[in-house]
C-alpha cells in the first residue's frame, strides 16, 4: 500500500520543523527545509515514512551547514500565509530570545552524536528510529540519551552561572 504522505505530513511536520529549527536556528529556514524534505520524500515508499523524512531532513540540514548556503525563501505564497508573530512585549521577547540563546549554546556543547540523538528523541522518534538515523547500536541509545540529557542540563546550568556571575 503506497505511503499516505498527506497523513504523514500532518502528523510529522511540526516535529520536523522543531528538529530542524534546533539545527539551523532560523524559523523560516527550518520550515523551508522541512518542506524540502517532504518534497524529496514524496516519490519514495519507505517502510517507516516518518523516520525516512527525518533522515532526509537531517541530510539536508547537514548539507546546508556544510555549504553554508543561504538562499531566498522559495514559496512566497507560503510566506504570505504565515501567521504573524505572537504579540509579545519587548521584555518578554528579549527574555525568550535569551533563554533560546542559552539552550542553543548548551546544545552546541554536546557532541554531535549526543545532540543528534537528543533532538531526535525530543522530536518523538523511538529508539529503533534513532538508532537507524544516527548509526548507533539500538542497545546504545539509552546510554547515549541519558548522557546527552545530563550533559545538556549541566551545560545549561554552567551557562546560567556564567551569565549570572558579576562582571
Amino acid at each position, binding site marked *: 500500500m503506497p505511503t499516505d504522505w498527506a497523513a504523514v*505530513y500532518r502528523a510529522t511536520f511540526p516535529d520536523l520543523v522543531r528538529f530542524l529549527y534546533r539545527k539551523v536556528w532560523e524559523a523560516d529556514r527550518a520550515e523551508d527545509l522541512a518542506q524540502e524534505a517532504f518534497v524529496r520524500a514524496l516519490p519514495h515508499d519507505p517502510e517507516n515514512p516518518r523516520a525516512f523524512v527525518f533522515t532526509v531532513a537531517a541530510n539536508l540540514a547537514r548539507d546546508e551547514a556544510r555549504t553554508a548556503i543561504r538562499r531566498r525563501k522559495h514559496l512566497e505564497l507560503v510566506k504570505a500565509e504565515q501567521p504573524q508573530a505572537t504579540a509579545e512585549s519587548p521584555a518578554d521577547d528579549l527574555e525568550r530570545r535569551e533563554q533560546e540563546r542559552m539552550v542553543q549554546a548548551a546544545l552546541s556543547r554536546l557532541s554531535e552524536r549526543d545532540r543528534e540523538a537528543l533532538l531526535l528523541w525530543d522530536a518523538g522518534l523511538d529508539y529503533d528510529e534513532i538508532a537507524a538515523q544516527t548509526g548507533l547500536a539500538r542497545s546504545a541509545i539509552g546510554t547515549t540519551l541519558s548522557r546527552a540529557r545530563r550533559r545538556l542540563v549541566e551545560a545549561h546550568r554552567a551557562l546560567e552561572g556564567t551569565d549570572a556571575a558579576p562582571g
Partner: protein
Amino acid sequence: MQHLDDALIAEWVDGGIAEDSPRHGAIAAHVDQCDECRIRVEEERALAGHVRQLLGVAIPPDHTPPFEEILHRAGPAPKRATGRSLPLVWRRLAVAATVVVAGGVGWYARGLVMERSAVPAGAAVMADAVGETGGTGRMGGTEGTGGAGERDALAAPPLESTVGKRLEVATAEAAGRGAAAAEEQAAAVGDTVRREAVAERPVVDEIVAVRRDAAPPAAPAVAQPSPMARAVAPAENEARMQKVAAEPWGTTTRPAAERALGRSLLLVPELRVVSIEMTADSGMVRVRQDLGGGAVLELLESRASDREREELGRVSGLVAAEPRAGNAEASAAATVEAVTVDGIRVIGRGAIPADSLRVLMQKLR
C-alpha cells in the same frame, strides 16, 4: 534480578519497552521492589522532563502549511527518485536535437530578460520581424563587453523579478554595484525602462533551446537545425553537450536545483514550468517551460567556473554585433540577429518558431 543499568533505565523512562513484552513486567516488578532502582528511575524521569522543558524554549512558530503546498513545490507528477535513463537510440536523438538546436539558440533568454533598447515598438513589429526572417524567427546574439561579473549578476536577481527588474539588476550590476544594491534600485525604480543596453557574452554552457517534445500535427514547425546554428556550435561544445546529455537525468525540485547551481534558476516569468531535471554527475540542470502549441523552452545551466564560462564563450566564435533598434537585423557575418519588441531588445542565436517566440515575448512584456 540485577539492578537496572543506565541504558535500561533510560529506555524504561522513555517508554521504549513494549508493555506486552516479558521484559516490561519483569522491570516493573523490579522497580517496585528495588528502592535504589526506583530512585534512579525517578531521577532519569526528572532529568528527561527538565530537558524537555529546556528544549521547549527553542521552538519555532507553530505553522503547518497545507499539504498542497508541498505537492505544488514538488511539481507535477512526482516520479521515483531513480534516475531516468532513456534507451540509447532515443538518447542519441535527444542529444542531437539538443546540441544542434540549443547550441544554435544559445544565449537567447539572457538577452530576452536583460536588454531594452531605446526605441519602443509595437507587437506588430515582432510579427513583421519574424516574417522577415523567413518564418523561422531566427534570433541573433551578440558578443559584448560583459564579463564574468555581469553574468554572475544575472544569476543573482530574484526569480520573481519582472523583466524590468531584471533589467535594472543587470544594469546596476554592470555599473559596478553589488547585487543587493541592484535589487534595491530595481525595487525603487519599479518597472521603468532603462535605456542603457547591457551587452552579454554568449555562454554556451547555459543554453536555451526551443524544440518540440511532442508533435501535434497542426502545430507549426519548430527549430530545425539551420546551417547558421551548426556554424556557431563549436565541436568542443557539442562534445560537452553530448557528454552531458548522455548522463541520466532525474527529476528534481527548484530549490534543489538552485542549491546545486549555487544561484537562482533563470526562468521566463509566467511561463509554466514543465519539469526541472538534474544530472547526478555533472550537476547540469535542465528546466523546461511550456511555450504552448507543443513547443517547450528548454534551459540548461551548469555550475561552470568563470574561467570555464569565458573559455566557452570565446570558443563559440561569435562575431560581436551591436543590433540597431527596429525589426530583425542580421549582423555582417550573418550569424547574429536582434529584434526589438516593445522596447525589449532580443538577442540570441539560432532558430525559434515565430509563434513560440510571440508567446515568449507576450509573457515577457
